[in-house]
């Protein structure tokens, strides 16, 4: 069960709010202090990705962030964009990153995924159970 649930219209300005809330709840849940920067970055990346997909597909629905602290700190970021858009994520290597023909969007998406995969040990990206969209689920340990 989610202890804190945040839903925001898909605008870049709200991503910072989601990061701040996500870190505040993580701290309260007992996530180690030295992991909080990574929590902040990962929640930001997941929300940025969701906002970008909503804007790309013209989806006005809100992005949903659910935070729960039963046993571990679990964050779910849920978008409502077509599923085929969201699952095909891949990190890029240095040659691909420096390639002139790579679009800014593809670069940012690839870098965003590399950050998620690099900072979150327990990461899942999967279709939502009901309706259209994907869910990015991230889990961090709590306690000492």
């Amino acid at each position, binding site marked *: 069960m989610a202890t804190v649930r945040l839903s925001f219209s898909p605008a870049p*300005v709200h991503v910072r709010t989601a990061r701040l809330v996500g870190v505040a709840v993580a701290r309260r849940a007992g996530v180690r202090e030295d992991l909080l*920067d990574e929590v902040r970055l990962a929640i*930001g*990346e997941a929300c940025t990705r969701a*906002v970008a997909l909503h804007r790309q597909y013209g989806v006005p629905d809100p992005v949903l962030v659910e935070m729960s602290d039963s046993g571990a700190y679990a964050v779910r970021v849920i978008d409502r964009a077509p599923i085929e858009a969201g699952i095909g994520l891949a*990190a890029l290597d240095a040659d691909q990153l*420096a390639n002139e023909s790579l679009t800014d969007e593809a670069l940012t998406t690839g*870098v965003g995924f590399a*950050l998620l995969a690099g900072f979150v040990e327990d990461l899942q990206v999967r279709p939502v159970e009901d309706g259209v969209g994907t869910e990015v689920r991230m889990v961090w340990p709590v306690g000492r």
Partner: protein
Amino acid sequence: MELSLATRTVGEHTVLEVGGEVDVYTAPRLRERLLELIDGGARHVVVDLGRVDFLDSTGLGVLVGALKRLRSAGGSFALVCDKEPLLKIFRITALDQVFPLHPTVDAAIGADPAGADA
């Protein structure tokens, strides 16, 4: 903290000092400023990330865009960063192999061939 941008010139180099949070909301302003500098004739640009306390994929995308633009114009682009959390972001994304990264502005300018002539 809000994004802050300040520009100064050191010899042939234009140094852009960035502070605060560079994210999906503020990155467009960083992109605009870099484009202004490059369109205004800056060819050797050093971006000092010393006072940045948050940097995400959109910010990194803007920096890569500036690097490519300057390289294709025969210029140079370097970053100044000595904070471990930010350096980790560059390592994880493999962008540490794409950007020249230096601990200080002096080191960045000294490492650039254009700096030797300045």
